[in-house]
């Protein structure tokens, strides 16, 4: 290959081949037509034709989260590029590695308000880890090499590569850039040994230690080290939304999720622990609630690969910048003794009995919680569960005990409704070890349901579940609790379609369920059906609320635990 003249389009595909890219999510258009001309003839990668470019970024995101590989997107200039923005922001907030290739008008026309021109580099600057506008075909291969390197290393994130049309058509001698040298970018992987030793000493002497685990543990592949560390030292583990799956949810040592809709006992543990160990977590406001009252009794240890997360929201006592997997390995070695956590565990068990996670079951009405609980019973964690955003997302986080890393995929940081349908398509293309469930509410499902066509086109055996309460349920919940029950524009009754019929119109098998006694059978049908996608619409209780709940900006100790008496503060 070396020494031969190649066009930018050919170099682009050659670089994708060398990066080991297996799937590209995209949509053709004028600026990238030459790439598509070549793409048609290559057999080393699969191109997934999306129906809206937002779907492409979410699919690549779901693919990346499910596999740990980098998701790749190819779209045209202008609207093709701007449509990717929400997906890029979603990936940025949850640190997913993506490389998004956008077409661009020829360099001679940039800035001219040319047809389908948009300054996508400018538009995406605050929501990308980095970006490249390739202005010379000789810069193309190095830019692509750097883009993949940046997306995947350190704290992962999305990278945009903007490709003007004349760069794609220009010819040059192709040289593969063997080395990547970026002098301003040197992520720290090894934690500082003295800091790790200090942390080990503090943990071993703790009376009430707590591990607070975030998505960084999953990204770093540190789940096994975490399991060893927690079990050896009998430490309680609580997880953020992105952390779910990092530690087995069924374990006695798991306290489940913490934060706004977290477990009562997990938040009590946060408030009362004397040593808090944050692992690959970033003290998000949905976790901490009011900062002034967050874990005030604790010595705080924070392990993160991104130095900017340290001391950002919460002052920590022992910061450790590094890859959490490597740090945990050393932390295990340096533990001088096991902490004595017997009394602490007794206290945690009391909290668990005091205020268990529960919902109304006796009235026979079909509730979201019941559907999720049954899904858990059917799969016991051996499934990839992709969720959208809202009440169903929180019910899944509460009632589905994730057992394995990379089995829980959701938009946490940005909270992007419309994420689940496309993200599950990406996940299903990357994974065939577990069935893929795609759970949405009626609001979010309608935001990207056009991508069902893609699931059908590739006959992906995705199990779509629409939890339909005919409301924008989470907003409705806030309106009920904090806005005097004024349900301003959240009622979708009479506005929603028959979702099962929508799916059927696309040739997708679908059914509707409205009673508790139909749920098991419907879930079993979903599990058994392997010929392609299938959808079940669950018509659930309209006015259910997610509890427990910490009101925004309140202390995590001020949880509302049930509806009947919302004033009861515990």
């Amino acid at each position, binding site marked *: 290959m070396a020494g031969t003249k190649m066009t930018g389009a050919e170099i682009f595909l050659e670089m994708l081949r060398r990066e080991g890219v297996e799937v590209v999510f995209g949509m053709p258009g004028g600026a990238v037509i030459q790439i598509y001309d070549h793409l048609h003839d290559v057999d080393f990668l699969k191109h997934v034709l999306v129906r809206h470019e937002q779907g492409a970024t979410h699919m690549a995101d779901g693919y990346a989260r499910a596999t740990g590989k980098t998701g790749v997107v190819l779209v045209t200039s202008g609207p093709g590029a701007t449509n990717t923005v929400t997906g890029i922001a979603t990936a940025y907030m949850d640190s997913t590695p993506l490389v998004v290739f956008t077409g661009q008008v020829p360099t001679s026309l940039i800035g001219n308000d040319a047809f389908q021109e948009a300054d996508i580099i400018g538009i995406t600057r605050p929501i990308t880890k*980095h970006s490249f506008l390739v202005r010379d075909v000789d810069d193309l291969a190095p830019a692509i090499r750097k883009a993949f390197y940046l997306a995947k290393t350190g704290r992962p994130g999305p990278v945009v590569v903007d490709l003007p049309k004349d760069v794609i058509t220009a010819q040059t001698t192709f040289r593969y850039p063997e080395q990547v040298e970026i002098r*301003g970018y040197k992520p720290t992987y090894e934690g500082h040994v003295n800091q790790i030793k200090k942390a080990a000493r503090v943990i071993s002497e703790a009376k009430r230690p707590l591990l607070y685990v975030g998505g960084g543990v999953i990204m770093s592949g540190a789940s096994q080290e975490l399991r060893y560390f927690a079990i050896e030292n009998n430490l309680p583990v609580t997880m953020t939304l992105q952390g779910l799956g990092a530690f087995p949810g069924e374990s006695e040592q798991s306290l489940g999720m913490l934060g706004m809709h977290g477990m009562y006992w997990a938040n009590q543990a946060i408030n009362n622990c004397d040593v808090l160990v944050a692992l690959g977590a970033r003290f998000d406001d949905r976790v901490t609630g009011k900062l002034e009252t967050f874990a005030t009794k604790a010595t705080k240890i924070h392990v993160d690969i991104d130095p*900017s997360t340290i001391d950002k929201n919460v002052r920590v006592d022992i910061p450790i910048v590094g890859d959490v997997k490597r740090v945990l390995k050393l932390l295990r070695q340096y533990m001088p003794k096991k902490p004595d956590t017997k009394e602490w565990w007794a206290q945690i068990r009391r909290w668990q009995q005091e205020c268990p996670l529960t919902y109304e079951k006796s009235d026979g009405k079909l509730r979201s919680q019941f559907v999720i609980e049954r899904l858990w019973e059917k799969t016991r964690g051996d499934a990839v569960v992709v969720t959208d955003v809202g009440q169903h997302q929180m019910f899944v986080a509460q009632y589905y005990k994730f057992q394995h890393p990379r089995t829980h995929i959701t938009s946490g940081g940005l909270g992007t409704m419309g994420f689940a349908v496309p993200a599950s398509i990406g996940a299903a293309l990357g994974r065939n070890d577990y069935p893929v469930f795609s759970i949405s509410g009626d609001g979010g499902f309608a935001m990207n349901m056009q991508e069902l066509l893609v699931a059908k086109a590739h006959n992906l055996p995705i199990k779509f579940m629409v939890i339909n309460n005919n409301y924008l349920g989470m907003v409705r919940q806030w309106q009920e609790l904090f806005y005097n029950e004024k349900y301003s524009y959240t009622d979708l009754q009479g506005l929603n379609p028959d979702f099962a019929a929508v799916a059927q119109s696309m040739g997708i098998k679908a059914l509707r369920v409205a009673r508790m006694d139909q749920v098991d059978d419907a879930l079993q049908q979903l599990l058994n059906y392997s010929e392609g996608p299938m959808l079940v619409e669950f018509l659930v209780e309209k006015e259910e609320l997610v509890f427990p709940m910490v009101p925004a900006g309140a202390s995590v100790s001020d949880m509302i635990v049930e509806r009947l008496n919302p004033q009861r503060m515990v």
Partner: protein
Amino acid sequence: MKHTISILMENRFGAFDRVANLFSGKGFNLHSITIGETELRDVMRMTIVTSGDDQIIDQVIKQLNRLVDTIKVVDLSEHDRTERELALITLHYEKGNLQEIKNICDIFRGRVVDINNKSVMLEITGPPAKIDAAVNVLMPFGIKEMARTGTVALKRGEQIRQPQEVG
């Protein structure tokens, strides 16, 4: 408290925008920003004056370091440094006060760089505080236009003690 931060960064398309964007996106204060060439062809130096409590300044430094195009970020406030700024100031003058303006200009070691029958332009260089003082004193004469460059700064060399002569 004001902090002067010096950034070495790649001389590359979009690098400056990323820094400016960071300040607006994260809501950091930005009092002045300058950018110019350095002794290295592919490296630019940006000098930023910002303010905030320790936690904010800590974040400013970390976020700047996080940018891929930044090579080195130093908070010069922690070091012995030299800071300079240049101002061009145009004033109206009347018959009686031209000499007075000239005197003030001399006190600040400035120079008259342009004059016509209505206005005079002064060039004043020095630490930002000196420029502030000059502006303050010149204000009553009626400043017609003013352009300030913003602060540039460099760390000063370490003072190496000369060996004592042995007698």
